[in-house]
Structures are given as structure tokens and as C-alpha cells.
């Protein structure tokens, strides 16, 4: 990038809010995934500069410059995702939203809050709780991730079962387009439609404001833990609980593999059986009824309730799925959303990977509606052993494939899963996204080289067949170690 553009950018945000230092650029060249440098060689991941706008207006002015010079712009929240959504592919400018972190408006009567997109979920929750309010659902990464980040990456997590995905909780958003226009888009807007901006990973513009529905702090909550031995029993039980009239706030499965890894972390002690964690929250009456119906199901099925202390500890630990990472030292994982009736075969096949690849695996599954389950299959790896690590990375693809082969969908695209974009959105929706992309980002500067198709630094697209081939070669290479 020309120095002149850096200079012009610094005139917009001020010198204190732009950095071209080597350290800052390295730290903004990646997300939470441990990606070996061998793989990033294909891409220009090092940004030219990192810039921190403080308002939508500044973002718009930045875009007017970058669209003219055709400089890629990569929006960044907390960088806590791992599919490469914030990893630069063709260098450019990283737009760090860290300074857009405030609550703008709050309506206690209307039960909505308008926030800047860079606000961290935990900070938002803490501020709302002071006023006796809280959000509807939260990402499992709530202690670090931002509102804008979750809106852009799918928005499925804790509370989704009761309140739906993030898209159902948004009243309106403010988006700055790559040409520098500031759009106010509400759920009733028809051109463009708001839903096209949800989960499209910063391809259509930068979300700078979000108006979210909120709720009163629940009057009561009730946590339950249940041990379930077999996967078939587990799937049937989860299905039945998900269909309860009093919908649980959260229904989570920690499979036997995960419980055994957790046990290893604490030097044994916990049973290595499937564990189901259920939480009800809401009015006292609603919660009591929910708990009673739930206990009825447990009793009818002859299941064993866990120690209450364990259930409460696991609920406290709900944002800490990566605890077991210490055993790795690297923790990898694959995500997919599957139909609930496929839970049993999916869990079985994921367990098969453990044998196939001689690794230790554990699966956390969130029931996100009465029909769908979000699967997060975690496994241990060791980034320090470079060659073996690349083959271990390939297991992620196997996990996603298991989901897809059972009627599931990918959860997130980013850079690494660009081959699945059609599977995630469907042909029709993807066409809508594409045509809006053409309209809003004709120069193709918005988070380029990913999502629609992974594109290497040389401008050569990684074709799905090629991508699969590379991954297969890597899997084969593994056998020779």
C-alpha cells in the first residue's frame, strides 16, 4: 500500500488509531485457529495496517479511500473465531472495531438495546444486569466475542433453543457499505433485506450498530444434570426434552469422550458417560413447571440424575469448552449443525474418527431448536509437531463431512470452509447474497478471497475439488508417519 493512503487513513482516525508496526500486523494476521505457516503461505495474511475507527462516519470515510485505491478491508471483532473470517487473504487494512464498544440506547419498557458492534457480550450482559435486564441468547464465547462478530458468524449458542438464532433477536442494524454509504436496515426492510447481512461474515459491509431485543433478568433458574449411558438413549432423551412445552433455556450434551477428557484434566474422578445439562430460566412459575416436566421424563426413562453440584459447576463452566486444551497442548475442533434425529449416528461416526486418527476426542452438542443440534467436536493435537499437525487439521473436514452426510449444514464458512458455502445457505439465498455483493462491493474490497471461494495470494481460486484433493493428500500423508 502506498504510504499516502496510510497517511490519509491516519488523517481520518488520528495517528493514535492506526498502526503499521510489525507486531500489530502479525497479531492481526490470524484468528484463534492455530494455522501452520505452511498453509498461510498460500495467502497474504499480513495486513498493511490496522485501524481503529470510532464511528460509522469514520468507517464510511475509510471506505471512500479504500474503494478508490481498491485496498482490501477486513473487519475484526475479538478474533475469537477459527475459520479465518478475520484472516487477511490479500493483505489490506484490518478494521478493528474495538473502539465501537458502547451502549447507545436502551429501552427498559420496549425491551431493546442499541449497541455499537464492537461491544463484548460479557460487557453488555454486565451492564444490562445492573439494570435488571439481560440478553436473549449468547455465544459460548461470550467472555471475549463481540456482538458484531456473532451477528456476522451465525449466532447460534446458549439460549438459542428458547429464543432462536441471533437473526431472530435483531430489530435493526447499521451497516457501512464498501462504497462508504451508511445504511440503516431494519427487519422490515426489503431492499436490502436485513437477513442477508446476518451470518455473511463481513462480505457485504461492516456492521457498526445492532439493535437487539432483550429481556428482564429471569426471576428464577434451575439447572439439571443427567447421566445417559448409550447414544441412542441420549438422542431420544434430548429430543423429548427439546419438545417440552416449557422450553429449556439451554440443553447441552457433553459426550462420554468429553467427560473423560474433563476427568483427565482433574486427574480422574468424574464418570466417563454422556452427560446432559439442562437449564430453565424465566418466571418462577414457568421454571418450576419446566423442572417438574423434566424430572418426570428423567424418572420415566429411568435415568440417573447427576450430583447437583456437578450440574451447577458445568453451568458455571458453560463458556469454557476449551478447558481441555491443556491436554493437547493444542485443541482443534469442527462444527456442524445436524438434524436431531441424526444425533446417534453422528456421534458414533465422530467417535470412529478417534480410532481412525489415534487422537482423543470429545463432543459438546447444543440443541438449538426442536429439530437441530449444533455439534462441536473437539480433539487434541500438537501444533509443535508440524507435519503430523497438518494431518490432524484434516480431521476438521471429516467432522464437517459427517454432519453433511447426515443432512446437516456447516456452521460458518470463513476461509477454510469456503467449499461449503452453498450447503450452508442454499442456492437461492446464496444467489441473493452474491447479487447484493456485486451491488454493494463492485470493487471486491470487502474481506476478499474467502467465503464465496478461497482464493490464494496469486489470485487463483482454490477449487472445491482441488481443496478436497489437498486435504486428502494430507490425510494420506498421515498414514506414513
Amino acid at each position, binding site marked *: 500500500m502506498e504510504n499516502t493512503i496510510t497517511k490519509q487513513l491516519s488523517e481520518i482516525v488520528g495517528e493514535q488509531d492506526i498502526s503499521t508496526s510489525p507486531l500489530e500486523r502479525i*497479531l492481526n494476521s490470524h484468528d484463534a485457529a492455530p494455522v501452520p505457516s505452511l498453509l498461510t503461505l498460500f495467502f497474504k495474511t499480513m495486513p498493511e495496517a490496522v485501524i481503529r475507527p470510532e464511528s460509522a462516519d469514520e468507517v464510511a470515510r475509510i471506505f471512500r479511500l479504500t474503494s478508490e485505491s481498491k485496498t482490501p478491508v477486513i473487519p475484526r471483532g475479538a478474533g475469537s473465531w477459527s475459520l479465518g473470517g478475520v484472516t487477511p487473504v490479500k493483505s489490506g487494512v484490518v478494521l478493528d472495531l474495538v473502539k465501537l464498544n458502547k451502549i447507545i440506547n436502551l429501552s427498559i419498557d420496549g425491551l431493546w438495546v442499541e449497541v455499537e458492534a464492537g461491544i463484548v457480550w460479557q460487557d453488555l450482559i454486565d451492564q444490562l444486569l445492573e439494570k435488571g435486564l439481560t440478553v436473549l441468547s449468547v455465544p459460548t464465547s461470550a467472555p471475549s466475542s463481540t456482538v458484531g462478530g456473532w451477528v456476522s458468524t451465525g449466532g447460534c449458542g446458549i439460549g438459542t433453543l428458547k429464543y432462536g438464532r441471533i437473526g431472530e433477536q435483531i430489530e435493526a442494524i447499521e451497516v457501512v457499505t464498501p462504497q462508504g454509504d451508511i445504511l440503516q436496515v431494519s427487519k422490515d426492510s426489503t431492499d436490502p433485506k436485513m437477513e442477508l447481512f446476518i451470518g455473511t461474515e463481513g462480505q457485504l459491509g461492516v456492521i457498526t450498530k445492532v439493535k437487539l431485543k432483550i429481556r428482564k433478568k429471569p426471576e428464577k433458574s434451575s439447572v439439571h444434570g443427567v447421566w445417559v449411558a448409550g447414544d441412542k438413549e441420549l438422542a431420544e432423551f434430548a429430543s423429548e426434552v427439546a419438545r417440552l412445552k416449557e422450553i429449556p433455556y439451554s440443553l447441552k450434551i457433553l459426550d462420554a469422550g468429553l467427560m473423560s477428557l474433563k476427568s483427565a484434566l482433574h486427574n480422574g474422578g468424574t464418570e466417563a458417560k454422556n452427560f446432559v445439562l439442562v437449564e430453565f430460566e424465566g418466571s418462577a412459575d414457568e421454571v418450576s413447571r419446566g423442572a417438574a416436566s423434566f424430572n418426570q421424563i428423567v424418572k420415566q426413562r429411568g435415568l440417573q440424575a447427576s450430583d447437583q453440584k456437578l450440574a451447577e459447576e458445568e453451568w458455571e463452566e458453560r463458556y469454557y469448552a*476449551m478447558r481441555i486444551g*491443556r491436554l493437547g497442548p493444542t485443541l482443534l475442533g469442527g462444527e456442524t449443525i445436524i438434524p436431531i434425529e441424526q444425533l446417534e449416528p453422528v456421534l458414533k461416526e465422530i467417535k470412529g474418527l478417534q480410532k481412525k486418527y489415534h487422537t482423543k476426542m470429545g463432543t459438546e452438542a447444543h440443541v438449538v431448536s426442536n429439530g437441530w443440534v449444533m455439534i462441536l467436536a473437539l480433539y487434541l493435537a500438537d501444533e509443535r509437531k508440524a507435519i503430523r499437525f497438518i494431518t490432524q487439521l484434516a480431521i476438521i473436514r471429516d467432522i464437517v463431512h459427517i454432519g453433511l452426510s447426515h443432512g446437516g449444514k456447516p456452521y460458518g464458512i470463513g476461509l477454510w470452509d469456503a467449499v461449503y458455502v452453498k450447503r450452508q445457505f442454499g442456492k437461492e439465498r446464496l444467489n441473493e447474497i452474491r447479487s447484493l455483493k456485486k451491488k454493494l462491493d463492485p470493487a471486491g474490497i470487502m474481506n476478499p478471497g474467502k467465503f464465496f471461494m478461497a482464493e490464494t495470494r496469486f489470485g487463483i481460486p482454490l477449487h472445491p475439488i482441488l481443496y478436497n484433493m489437498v486435504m486428502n493428500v494430507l490425510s494420506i500423508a498421515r498414514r506414513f508417519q
Partner: protein
Amino acid sequence: MDIPELKRLDVEIEPWVCTQCGNCRTVCPVFKQVGWESASPRGKLYYVKKLLEKGPSKQEPIDEEFVKRIFQCSLCVRCEEVCQTKIDMMKVWQALRAELGNRGLWPKEVQGTRDAVVSKYNLFSMPNERRTVWAMMIKDRVLPRINKVAEVAYFVGCVSAFTGRISGIPESTVSILGSAGVDYTILGPDEWCCGSPLFAVGAHADALALAQHNVEKLHQLKVKKLITNCAGCYRAFKKEYPKLLGGDIGIEVLHFSQFVSQLIDKGQLKFNRPKEVTITYHDPCEIGRHCGIYDEPRHVLTSLPGVKLVEMPNNRNNSECCGGGGLLKATYPDLSQAIAASRINQAIHTGATDIVSTCVACRLQMSEAARAKNLNIGVHDIAEFVAQFL
């Protein structure tokens, strides 16, 4: 590149154990002020991982900005509290600071502090004989105690001993001990810096002579119980000395608030001067998160007649740092003050008129920030506060 200090403290694997989840970013008091990824704990770990990945034979200069960021840290270890994989962040920061020292990359303030402590046995490069300067007004009560054989020793600490503005802390301590009828000794000029500033930069070897001297001296005076107002001294004696000296030091180490809590429970302290006041308690990092003391100071404060204790939203293990630790106050005073102001504003928000702490550095830091930023709140060490009720 090789980073031997990470091996020495057994944390070489931690940069890989870090999941880059970013929980530390949200709570880091420095990140909140600075806002650049390089100031976040996970950012620092990522850079270290990249250095280590280059292999042991590869040497290259360490990034200057990284050196700055390593010292832009108050060692509050709130990062450790929220860490997914429970990384021992204190050890990581100690090791990295020590490594930078070995490479001659310490900021001059750090080098100066280290030299003062090692050569003059105190933080301020003062003649160590002047350690009792704080007792000027109460000579009669203090001087006879110096080098006396007693079961209890009062370890004053450099900050209280040499900082005239807070001489009220040791004075109040003497009043409380007197009122409770405790027989105690003071080391006086034979009290050497506990080594806390050296531990803050991982210079354990430099601290050895100090630790040996202090423990030997205490043993000579037949001391069984050591009490101190200083959170840094407390942490040094409690956590670092046993590791450094290869085992139990044979002396019970108590923070003064713990000792006062015991005196209250034994009925040895009578509070004759009630005062209606609403206060909040600031958990110092080195007393709370580092050493797990949360209850005794609260017990003391709520035992005082007329005192109403209100909590800040961030309390106990989620307490926010005052910005005064980790030598941050010396290396980056403006940043340090900004952090203090943020904490004081939280205290004011509770409706309390006074904030009490159990760390002399917090007390000094918050008083200065309150004055500089014109924030209206009384700042006290627990000894000063308790003494008002005698």
C-alpha cells in the same frame, strides 16, 4: 529462538496451550486503556509462540514494541482468572521479563529499581539505616522494639518505611498493636527489601541474598509470626520465599488484615469510637488473586462500629487492578494513573465515601490518582482506617 527463562519457570509450553480465545483481552486493565492487540495477554503469547516456532538455533532481535508491552502490565493476573486453559500467567510474565533482562532490554526504571534493591537493600536507593524514618513522631514506642526478641515481627516494607505521605500506615499499625497489647519486634535497618520488585521481573537469583538475610534475621530474633501491611512483601514471603529457599521458612506469614481479624476474634481489640460511614473494599491483586485472601479484610471492616461495607461490581477474584503493580507505576506512570482513575470511579459509583485497601501501593496509587483527577473519595489502608475506631 530459544527462551531459556520460559524453561526455567517451566512455562515453555504455555504459548501453545493458549487457545487465543481472548477472554484475557476483555478483563485486562492495560488492554482496556491501550486497546491494541499487542497489549493483550493473548497477543503477547502469540508473538512468543512465533519466536519459539523459529527453532532454537535462530536468533533475531526481539520486537521493541513487544518489550514495551511486556512492561505495560501491572501483573494483576486477571488474565489467569479467566483463562480457558488456566495458564500460570504470573510465571509467564516473570519469565519473559527475566529473559528481556538477560538480553539487556529492561527499561531504565526497571534496571534502576533492581540495582537499588540489590545494592542498597531498599526500593528507593536510600541509606538503609534510615528505615525507621517513618517513626520520627513515635520514637519512644518504636525504637525500643528494634532487634528485640519476640514471637511476632512487624515487617514494615520499603514503601511504608520511606514514603512520608503514608507514614500513617506504620503509625496506625503501631497503635493497633499497642492497643491489643501485642509484643513484637521490628528489624529496623536490618530489614532488607523483601525482593518483591525482583520477583516482578523474574530476577529470582538476585532476590536470594535478600530472602536469606531476612529469614535468618527473623530466626535470630526467634520470630514465629511475621505480619506486614504490604501486599508485595506478603506475597514475597508467602509464595516466593519457600520456592526460593527450598521449603517452609518456619515462620507463619500473615497480612496485617489477617492478624487484626484474629485480634478481633480473640477480643483483643476494642473499638470505642464508632463512625457512621459507607465504604467499599478494594481487593489488591497480590492479596486477592495472587494469595486468595478475601474474607479477613471484610471481616475486619464489618466489625467496625458504624461501618457499612458496599461492594463494587468487580470484587474478590474479579477485582480490578489499581494499576500500581508490576512496576507499571515506574515505567508507564500515565497508563498506571489512568487505570487507577477507572477503579476509583467504580468505587465512587457504589455511593461509598471511602475506599479501603490492604496494599500500601494501592493506597498510594489511588490517593495520587484521586488527587490528580479531582475524584472525591477518601483512600485508606486498612490499618489507617481501623486505627480511627480505637
